[in-house]
């Protein structure tokens, strides 16, 4: 649960950093945190169904915009930028893939949702589908960014994908579409914040054996708010976290702890088929 809380705060922080750097440098961060958390709290109290429907509505749009922003950059593509492949050794490759691995781990919150699903058997399929789509999109993104900017520049940009959106040009008139694209990313980020928020609230409510999780929402919101405010000093800290600690933390919590709990529960309940409730 605490892990989810932390992740909520982190995601919130990342989105706000992007916003502030790229769009509105003069607005205090607090405002963004507050507004996002309040709307998110509204969503959390609305319950799982509206959140689910919201993502049903927003995610196709996000994917569409993402694909569109990639497609409209086709004229900037340089295929040869991709070469050479596999420059690094296997070890380095693995190390570099830790971060995406850690972020994918967030998918385990779907495990929490499983209990609330109409037919839990389908969730695995949905989960796998989601992960696969996400992976494909990320790979596509990486390829595009590299193909457009080349390896050198894109490692030096703070938000390569945003710069990619900046490159879009449709028929000489629609040029600066990056904001539009970014708005959709924020929407997607908002969704993940809301889901993480929901899960942490629910988790804490279960922990405290509260009858109604909605009572907890404001408190969790305040907690996330404080965490977000105090977590990092500046953007380089965020980067450091992502390159250093987070993947290990995330993977150990997501992979290790869950597996451990699984085995513990196996041990305790014998070999009876039981429904496993995953907890972060």
């Amino acid at each position, binding site marked *: 649960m605490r892990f989810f809380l932390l992740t909520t705060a982190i995601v919130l922080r990342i989105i706000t950093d992007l916003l502030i750097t790229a769009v509105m440098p003069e607005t205090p961060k607090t405002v963004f945190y507050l507004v996002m958390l*309040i709307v998110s*709290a509204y969503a959390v109290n609305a319950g799982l169904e509206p959140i689910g429907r919201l993502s049903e509505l927003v995610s196709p749009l996000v994917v569409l915009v993402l694909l569109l922003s990639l497609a409209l950059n086709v004229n900037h593509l340089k295929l040869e930028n991709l*070469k050479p492949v596999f420059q690094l050794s296997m070890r380095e490759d693995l190390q570099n893939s830790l971060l995406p691995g850690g972020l994918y781990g967030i998918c385990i919150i779907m495990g929490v949702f499983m209990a609330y699903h109409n037919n839990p058997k389908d969730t695995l399929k949905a989960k796998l589908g989601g992960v696969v789509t996400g992976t494909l999109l990320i790979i596509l993104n990486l390829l595009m960014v590299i193909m457009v900017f080349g390896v050198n*520049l894109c490692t030096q940009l703070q938000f390569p994908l945003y710069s990619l959106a900046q490159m879009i040009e449709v028929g000489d008139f629609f040029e600066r579409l990056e904001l539009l694209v970014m708005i959709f990313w924020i929407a997607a980020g908002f969704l993940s914040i809301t889901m993480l928020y929901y899960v942490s609230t629910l988790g804490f409510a279960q922990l405290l054996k509260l009858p109604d999780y909605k009572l907890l929402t404001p408190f969790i919101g305040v907690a996330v708010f404080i965490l977000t405010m105090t977590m990092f000093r500046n953007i380089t800290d965020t980067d450091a976290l992502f390159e250093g600690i987070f993947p290990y933390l995330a993977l150990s919590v997501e992979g290790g702890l869950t597996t451990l709990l699984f085995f513990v529960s196996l041990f305790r309940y014998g070999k009876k088929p039981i429904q496993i409730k995953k907890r972060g």
Partner: protein
Amino acid sequence: MRGKSGVVFLLLILSVILLTTGCWNRKELDRLAIVAAVGIDKGEDQKITLTVQVIKPEALKRPSSEGGSGKEKGVWIIKSSGNTIFDAVRNFVEKSGRKLFLPHTMVIVIGEKMAKDGVIPVIDWFLRDHEMRLQTWVLVAQGEASEVIKGDSGLEKIPASHLERMIEDYGALSKSVSSNLMEVTNMITCQSSHPVIGRISKNKSGQDDEEELILKGAGVFRKDRLIGWLNPFETRGYLWIKGKVKSGVITIPCPEHPDQLISLEIIKSKTKVKPRLEMGMLKYTIEVDVNSNLGEQMCTEDLANPEMIAVLEDEQRQAVEKEIVALIRKAQEEYKLDILGLGEATMREFPKEWNKVKEQWAEEFPQAEVEVKVNSRLSLTGMLKSLKTLK
């Protein structure tokens, strides 16, 4: 229900906060100085001077019935200086009374002195600023950038858009280079490549002492420092190698009357830089496909038959080869600088070998063996077959 009313309450508070204090990033259009072009110079005292063209929206309004003077200039040119670019930009407020608004900048012109001292500060500032676009054109001025910014346009009310058109249409001539912020950055940050940026200069035209802007040739940079110029001829050589020739005119002598000329219009070109390994030595082939149409002939020979076309194709091949070779010679012998992108090509094809040579590539490059291969084709002869009856 309690949670809901809480949210409503929070929203209420929030709206009060937002209404009372909320204008952090709000900017009204009439408070902005919309910049069309920026010129960056370095003075003798190492201070940076910015010259900008600020658009005057009032002057560009559609002339109303009360007859606004159509002659009024659409831009206002102001200068400001400071120790850094950011400093200089902020110092504009002293003079303009409005904050400079840069996202609509069409062209960045870098002065010669600034370019010779290094353009890293320019690139860094423009990339870091969230408002800038990566697709802003970059030019290097021969002389002072401020002179270019001050230059007037006979056609456009905003001289910057005149510059922009010039850059965008460079392809009709292929005698200069168009590069935007992103391309320049990419070439600077890439291991082996070096930027070549279009050259803009202000010349006195012959008659009435009017000055005009000319986009011709290009500046060659070693990483971020300007080290020399390419003339239009060499520039096209550069463009051939980069595969960036879109159109242009190749003039060749008539096969039988060498004093008279034939113009060929380039329709399509394609370039491949192929490195290959021969006995552990890196060798390069630059293969260029040129496809052109007959655009003009000053002589009256009948060229519209296969034999003559073949002759013309051969002459075209020679002409293109000459341009490319001239560029290669200049790069290898004069500048000793890999502006051709040979290093990059090596890195892509033979990463292992590249790792060996990349440290001493500056010494290796001038010795590299480059073979130029031009496949020349002539496809159409225009609306006319030939005017041989005039004989």
